[in-house]
Every structure is written in structure tokens, then in C-alpha cells.
């Protein structure tokens, strides 16, 4: 009996501990997780500032001093480059290890391995992982790694960075793991240079992973070339390109082989939507010393991305013999990506140049072993992908490759993206290992003048960017990346995969990429718009960012002189809504003739008195925004809604409304009656007012733009409570302050060049990736208020400054 009692109670205790030690569904292991000695509690940081610390580490060649300022920014002083990147990897991992690894797991299609096959809304983690494998994320990362390994300079830099990350990982016991590891119950694995390459592919997917080839092919098939030329022109009606119109192109372009006829692809449909977010875009600009109070150039940059916690950016200063640079880095990669040194400053905005094309493939038979190209049958390659699933079987998938690239879907398979047709091959620049992007940033970090800058850009392939530059005397902008030399319209639609004239064969030579140095207008700028006017001899793509944001920047820069850095801070917060200014007056003229109720009239007055600034405390931008969406849907949904078609741009819609009142698009083809523009305007206006009234009650402060838009910064794994929600900020996507609901300026920077360079900047997040740290989100409120922090640019390891609060000394072992 006693035996039985003992056995029974012992089993009960054992089972209890076992149950509390494992993960149940999405619930973390409760005992392990709540234990205040090892669980989440031990991630709560008691002190706001770090104590001084001395660590002995394997792998360092000499001592490194890391000085932390009052914003948590590490200033790394190393005696050689190896130690510099080792220390960068070490401190980045110390602050952001979980984020670094999660990003690379996501890039590589390994989420099922840590999360199991769970639902992510419309899709599952396995669907997501399969998608990543099939579009060739790992293929591209391997190719980039091969290129880096052939370059001893960058392979050493990446190896040093990885060694630093690993030195940190090795110093951890499970109780020290970042919080998210404890929630999802897994452990960090060793870091490698390959993971950095995976991260680069993730950035390429975010910034250059958009394709409308399939939808444009469907649209062309449905409406014909005339309507497509009208609604989707290769060059928009209204545009101020990055390189000013009329700039001469004084070079001999490469000859191009355009096919004679037009290829009619077999259209494919029926795919659930899952795309990278719409391009919210980015801004950068620089003015020459002639336009500034100091007589030296000033440069500004604010790249817009999906806003996430932890932030994609990590601020750092890197100092070693031959380099002293300050700016933002990616935790997963060595070097500074956007920033300045004592001589130069640079920044980037994304290019929408089309470097992702789809080809229809003619396979010999269902085995997909051979495909037809250039008059002969060519063999395909097969790559076996294994997806491990936590608590489940390993799923294997064979991806077929043509010389174009992977064929993500076979007949009958459906993917998670509307842009992927079955039995088509993907040609994507990010698959090539031809570029060496990290080498570009390595050289930019050390550049001392314009020539160094241009040389640094040479090795940069993807995702293409507008690189803005300023030093003491010059300003410049380069639309830079590797661009296939395309004939006009190449890659706008699905291409014929058997005809080599559809292949990418030649590349635009470096000196022929759109660029300008010290233009007459004394400023350079970009806002993701078309790089060059139609006289530029190459076709780069057709779907660039709308006119308005870039036009507003240029209006500002043209009309302002005697500029001080503070002016650029204010300019980055500019909320002028040029789209509203262009389209609203004609809408209001229509409304003024109509019978309206008292609340409707009140809204009309609100709009009539609007100064077109989408500020947080105004009500008119909320009305306009809701109304615009209804107008846009009202015009296009009946014709473009059902099939997998590409919808006309917001710009084109605005010009249609303002300038083409008689167009037939206003008619709802699903009804017998013929509706005209004015009826649509009135109907959608009334719907807007009832919707807002229903949601918030009769007009009150909840109608204010900042409250209505309510910007949210979500956690990278969408963990509730780990984001920063309901920020009350103005701006919108086609506005300089391009802050939407989930996207916006991910880093704002202003740099004043001259003998004593000065920088200001902020990002919506915090240096620490630990949700248990006060530094997790300590920049967010200042960011939302539009403040910039003084960036502390130290000249030497011993320079005294009251803002330096802690020191980390890394010693050799």
C-alpha cells in the first residue's frame, strides 16, 4: 500500500513537471516560462543603463572598447577590421539576437520548424515555407554566398561578424535566451555568413519582390492594348523623374533585340492573395551649399518600410583604422547601411525598376524533365527541399529550375501569391550572385569623396536604390543596381520562355545608369518615382511610385533657400496632400450643386475649408481618405474586381476624376442603369458620412485623422502586447510624411556636411530587442512627435562626453 502511494504520488509529481515543461499548442511551457529564475521574468531589465562590463572572448585579435551613449547606441572602437566586425556582430546579437535569427528562418522557409504547422490567417506556416523555397530564396542566398566567398575581403568581414554573433550565443545559458525563444520554446543555433545572405534576400523580396506580370497579362487580355496604354502607361502623364527631364543622355546605348510580334500568354487564375505590402516608398534629398545657411550641403533620408518591433534598424558607430562611420545597420549584417562619416553622407530610397519577370515555359511532358528554349529541348534541374515541421513529419518538395530560374508551381498547385502562375519560371535578379551589396556598404563607410562613392556603387545589384550623396562640395544621386537592358515593355507582361529575345542578356553599363551630380537646380531628390524621362534609352519598368510625393519634395526644395538642418526635419514631417489638392476641388464643385442633409453639409464645409494638410488633428483627411477609397472601388471594382487583374493607379484615378468627367468607367456595369461621374461622387460621399457616423457617432474628435488612421507598430512575430499600438500621427502614403497604418518612415536622418559633420536621426523603436527593457521602444514617442535625436559622432576612443553612460570592454582570451 505504501509502495503504491509512493509510486502514485511520485508519478503525479513527475507528470506535472513534464506537462509544465512542454509547449501545448501556442502556449509556452508554463513551468519553464513562469519560473522567475529562468523564465520570462529573468528577461525583465532592472536597470535602464547597462553597467560597465569586461568580457574575455575567444576569437578577438586585440582589445575592443564599446562605449554606449544615453540612447543605447554602441560606439565601437577596434584596432583592426576583424575585431570591428566581430564586435559589431557581438553587440548586435546582444541586443537583437532573436530578431536576427527569426528573419533568417523566415527568409529560408523554416518557420514550421520552430512554430509547427500553424495557421497564419489565410495560410499556414507550411504554405509560407513552401513559398519561400519555391521562389528560390535559399537558391539566391547560396549564389550570393558563393560570390562573397570568392572575395577574400568580404568573406573575412562576414566571417568576423558571424564569429562575434556566435561568441555571444555561446555565452548564453537557457535563462539568458531572448524572451521570444522562451515563448516559442526553442534555442538559437550557430550564426553563419549564409544567414546574412538569407537576410539580404529577405530585403530583396520586400523591396524588389513585386511583380504584376500575370495580372497585367490578364488585364491586357481582357481590355486590349488601347485601354492598357491609357490606364497603365509606360510613363505616366504627370511625373518629375529623379533625374530632371531634359538632362542629356550622352552615351551610346547597347543595341537591343526586341521580338517582332506580341506574345499572348495563357492566363492563369484562382490564387489567394499574399503579397509584399504596397510600396509606401521612401524619400531622400540633398541640397548644395548654395542653398544652405552654412554654405555646405545638407542631406536627408527617410526610408519607409513596414513598421515593426524590434525595428529593422540598429544604430551604431564603427571605428577602426581607415574607417569611422555612424548610421543605421541591419543587425544581421556587418557595416552601416545608411549614414555618414567625417567626409560624406549617403542615403537610399527604393527603386521600382522591374527586376522580377515571369516566363511561360513549354515543357516536353508532364515529367518536367525538359523544356523548349532557343529551338531545342533543354534539361531542367531539380532541387530537393526538406521542410522540418515541429512535432510532425518532414515534408519534401522538389523545385524545378530552368535557366530562367525556379518554376514555383506545377499544374494544379496553388501558391500563396497572386503573382505566381503555375508552370511558369521566375527570373529574379535577387537569385543571381552577380552583385556584392555588402561590399558597396563597406566602401561607402570608407568613402571620402564622389569618386569613392561611384566606385562603391559598382558592385551593388539588388534591390536597386536611389543612392543620394553629399560631401563638403558635391551633391549627387544615382539610380543604382544591376539593370537588365530591356526593350520597351519587356517584362511588363508574362514573357515567352522559349524565345531567347525575352531573356535578359545585356546589362546597363555602370556609367549609363541614371545619375546626376551637382545639377543646376542645386538639389537632388528621389521618392521612388520614375528614374528618368522617356528619352532615357533603356526601359526600366513602368510601375514607379506616384507623382505627388516627389513633386512636393521638389516644390519645397525649389522654393527654399538659406536652409538649416531644422528645415529638413520639418520637411520630413510635411503632411501636404497633393493628391487631395489635385482632385478634391472638382469633387466639391459637384457636391455644391446637390441637396445635402445637415451632417453632410457639415462634412462638406470641413472639406471646403481644408488646407490639404493631412495633420493628425484634422477631420477633413479622414473624410477624404474614406471617400477616396469608395470612389476608387466604385470606379474600378465592377470591371477589375473578379478576375486576377491589375488595378489602375491612384494617380491615374485622380486624373480621370479631375479631367475626364465623361469617361465610361464611372458606370457600374453590374447594374442596368447607366451611372455617371457626378452620381458616383454624390453616392460615395453619402456612404462615407454614414460610415464615419456609424463608426464614431456624429462628427467628434474621434473623426480626427490621427485617431482614425491609428498607426500600429506590430511585433515581428505579431505577439500581442509586444507592439506599440494606436499612435496618433499625421501623414499618409502619397505624402512626404508617408506614415500609413502599418508602414512609414523607418529611419529619419538629416546630416549637415562640412568641416564638422553633424547628424540627427530617429527610428520608431529602440536599440534593445528585449520587450523587458525600457530601451525596447524608447524612441517611439519622440518619433511620433516628429523629433530627431542628436547623433553622437565620436572622433576617438578616449573622447569625453557626458552622454556616454556605459562601457563594454572586450578582451582577448
Amino acid at each position, binding site marked *: 500500500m505504501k509502495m503504491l502511494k509512493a509510486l502514485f504520488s511520485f508519478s503525479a509529481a513527475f507528470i506535472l513537471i513534464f506537462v509544465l515543461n512542454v509547449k501545448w499548442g501556442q502556449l509556452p511551457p508554463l513551468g519553464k516560462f513562469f*519560473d522567475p529564475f529562468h523564465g520570462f521574468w529573468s528577461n525583465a531589465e532592472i536597470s535602464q543603463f547597462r553597467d560597465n562590463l569586461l568580457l574575455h572572448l575567444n576569437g578577438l585579435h586585440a582589445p575592443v572598447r564599446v562605449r554606449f551613449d544615453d540612447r543605447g547606441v554602441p560606439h565601437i572602437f577596434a584596432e583592426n577590421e576583424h575585431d570591428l566586425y566581430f564586435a559589431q556582430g557581438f553587440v548586435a546579437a546582444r541586443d537583437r539576437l532573436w530578431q536576427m535569427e527569426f528573419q533568417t528562418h523566415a527568409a529560408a522557409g523554416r518557420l514550421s520548424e520552430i512554430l509547427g504547422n500553424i495557421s497564419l490567417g489565410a495560410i499556414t506556416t507550411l504554405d509560407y515555407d513552401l513559398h519561400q523555397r519555391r521562389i528560390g530564396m535559399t537558391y539566391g542566398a547560396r549564389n550570393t554566398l558563393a560570390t562573397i566567398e570568392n572575395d577574400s575581403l568580404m568573406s573575412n568581414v562576414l566571417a568576423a561578424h558571424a564569429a562575434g554573433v556566435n561568441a555571444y550565443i555561446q555565452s548564453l545559458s537557457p535563462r539568458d535566451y531572448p524572451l521570444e525563444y522562451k515563448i516559442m520554446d526553442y534555442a538559437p543555433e550557430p550564426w553563419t555568413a549564409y544567414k546574412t545572405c538569407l537576410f539580404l534576400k529577405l530585403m530583396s523580396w520586400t523591396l524588389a519582390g513585386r511583380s504584376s506580370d500575370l495580372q497585367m497579362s490578364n488585364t491586357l487580355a481582357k481590355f486590349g492594348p488601347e485601354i492598357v496604354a491609357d490606364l497603365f502607361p509606360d510613363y505616366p502623364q504627370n511625373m518629375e523623374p529623379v533625374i530632371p527631364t531634359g538632362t542629356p543622355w550622352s552615351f551610346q546605348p547597347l543595341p537591343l533585340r526586341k521580338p517582332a510580334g506580341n506574345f499572348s500568354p495563357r492566363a492563369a487564375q484562382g490564387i489567394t492573395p499574399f503579397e509584399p505590402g504596397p510600396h509606401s516608398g521612401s524619400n531622400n534629398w540633398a541640397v548644395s551649399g548654395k542653398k544652405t545657411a552654412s554654405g555646405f550641403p545638407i542631406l536627408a533620408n527617410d526610408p519607409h518600410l513596414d513598421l515593426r518591433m524590434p525595428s529593422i534598424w540598429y544604430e551604431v558607430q564603427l571605428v577602426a583604422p581607415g574607417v569611422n562611420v555612424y548610421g543605421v545597420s541591419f543587425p544581421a549584417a556587418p557595416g552601416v547601411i545608411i549614414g555618414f562619416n567625417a567626409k560624406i553622407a549617403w542615403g537610399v530610397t527604393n527603386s521600382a525598376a522591374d527586376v522580377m519577370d515571369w516566363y511561360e515555359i513549354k515543357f516536353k511532358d508532364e515529367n518536367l524533365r525538359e523544356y523548349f528554349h532557343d529551338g531545342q529541348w533543354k534539361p531542367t534541374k531539380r532541387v530537393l527541399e526538406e521542410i522540418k515541421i515541429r512535432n510532425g513529419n518532414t515534408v519534401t518538395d522538389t523545385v524545378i529550375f530552368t535557366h530562367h530560374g525556379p518554376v514555383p508551381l506545377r499544374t494544379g498547385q496553388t501558391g500563396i501569391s497572386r503573382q505566381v502562375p503555375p508552370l511558369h519560371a521566375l527570373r529574379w535578379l535577387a537569385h543571381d550572385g552577380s552583385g556584392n551589396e555588402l561590399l558597396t556598404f563597406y566602401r561607402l563607410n570608407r568613402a571620402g569623396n564622389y569618386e569613392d562613392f561611384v566606385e562603391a556603387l559598382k558592385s551593388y545589384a539588388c534591390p536597386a536604390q536611389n543612392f543620394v550623396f553629399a560631401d563638403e562640395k558635391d551633391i549627387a544621386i544615382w539610380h543604382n543596381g544591376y539593370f537588365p537592358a530591356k526593350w520597351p515593355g519587356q517584362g511588363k507582361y508574362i514573357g515567352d520562355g522559349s524565345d531567347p529575345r525575352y531573356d535578359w542578356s545585356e546589362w546597363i553599363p555602370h556609367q549609363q545608369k541614371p545619375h546626376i551630380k551637382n545639377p543646376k537646380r542645386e538639389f537632388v531628390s528621389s521618392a521612388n518615382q520614375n528614374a528618368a524621362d522617356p528619352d532615357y534609352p533603356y526601359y526600366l519598368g513602368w510601375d514607379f511610385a506616384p507623382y505627388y510625393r516627389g513633386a512636393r519634395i521638389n516644390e519645397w526644395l525649389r522654393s527654399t533657400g538659406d536652409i538649416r538642418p531644422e528645415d529638413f526635419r520639418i520637411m520630413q514631417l510635411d503632411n501636404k496632400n497633393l493628391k487631395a489638392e489635385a482632385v478634391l476641388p472638382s469633387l466639391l464643385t459637384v457636391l455644391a450643386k446637390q441637396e445635402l442633409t445637415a451632417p453632410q453639409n457639415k462634412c462638406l464645409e470641413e472639406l471646403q475649408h481644408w488646407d490639404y494638410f493631412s495633420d493628425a488633428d484634422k477631420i477633413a483627411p479622414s473624410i477624404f481618405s474614406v471617400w477616396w477609397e469608395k470612389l476608387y472601388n466604385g470606379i474600378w471594382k465592377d470591371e477589375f474586381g473578379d478576375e486576377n487583374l491589375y488595378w489602375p493607379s491612384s494617380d491615374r484615378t485622380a486624373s480621370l476624376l479631375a479631367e475626364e468627367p465623361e469617361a465610361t468607367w464611372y458606370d457600374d456595369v453590374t447594374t442596368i442603369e447607366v451611372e455617371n461621374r457626378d452620381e458616383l461622387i454624390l453616392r460615395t460621399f453619402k456612404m462615407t458620412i454614414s460610415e464615419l457616423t456609424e463608426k464614431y457617432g456624429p462628427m467628434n474628435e474621434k473623426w480626427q485623422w490621427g485617431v482614425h488612421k491609428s498607426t500600429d507598430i506590430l511585433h515581428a512575430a505579431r505577439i500581442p502586447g509586444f507592439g506599440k499600438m494606436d499612435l496618433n500621427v499625421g501623414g499618409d502614403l502619397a505624402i512626404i510624411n508617408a506614415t500609413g497604418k502599418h508602414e512609414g518612415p523607418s529611419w529619419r536622418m538629416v546630416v549637415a556636411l562640412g568641416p564638422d559633420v553633424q547628424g540627427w536621426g530617429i527610428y520608431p523603436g529602440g536599440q534593445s530587442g528585449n520587450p523587458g527593457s525600457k530601451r525596447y521602444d524608447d524612441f517611439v514617442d519622440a518619433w511620433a512627435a516628429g523629433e530627431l535625436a542628436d547623433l553622437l559622432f565620436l572622433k576617438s576612443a578616449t573622447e569625453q562626453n557626458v552622454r556616454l553612460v556605459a562601457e563594454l570592454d572586450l578582451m582577448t582570451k
Partner: protein
Amino acid sequence: MIVDAILMLAAAALLELIGPWWTLGIASFVVAAIRSGSGKDATMAGLIAGLLLWLGVSLFIHLGSGGVLTVRIAEMMQLPAFVVIVLTGILGGVVASVSAFSGFQVGVLIKRGESSGARRFGIF
């Protein structure tokens, strides 16, 4: 019983500094096996020790850190923040009390074995 609880608490605090979370169970198991006079006493001592230890440490961290993380975990679990702290204490208490009860039962078994053995060899 109070002495047992204090011993369990001290042993668990020490063991948790070097071992994983379930050393809380081992500490209360061993102390109960050696010392507890009854199953009820063992369970009670374990409950007090586990509850006080986990509640105490988590409360110390909560107050020391200004509750930054408590609030986030609470939102993640959709619970009020104080429940997160109380739940921590309860979990510690339950683990320690169940372990202590089982420790007592096993202790009885071992002690009986020892005493019967002693009798057989006629040492006492």
C-alpha cells in the same frame, strides 16, 4: 512544518541558481522525504515554499523593473498584470507541494526499509 518550508525555500533558491526550473520540485521532494512528519505537512510546507519563492522573486523583479515586462506578458496572455504575478506564485506552490507530498511518501518507504533492515540485523 514551518522549518521544513524554510528549508525547502532555501534549497530551491540555491538549486535554481545552478539548475533548471524543476529543481524547485527536487528541493521540496528531498526536504519532505527527510523531514516531513505527515503528507499534509509536506504538502503544506511545499505550497508555502514554492508560492513564497516564486511570488517573492517575481514581485521583486516586477517592482524593480517598473513592470515593463509584466504588462506585456499580461497582454500577451490576455490577463490582468497582477494575475500574471499571482499565477507565478501558484505555479511554484503547486509544483513544490505535489513534489513535497511525493517526497514524503517516498521517504516513508525508504525509512521503513531502513528501520526494518535495522531490526533484522539487530543493531538497535
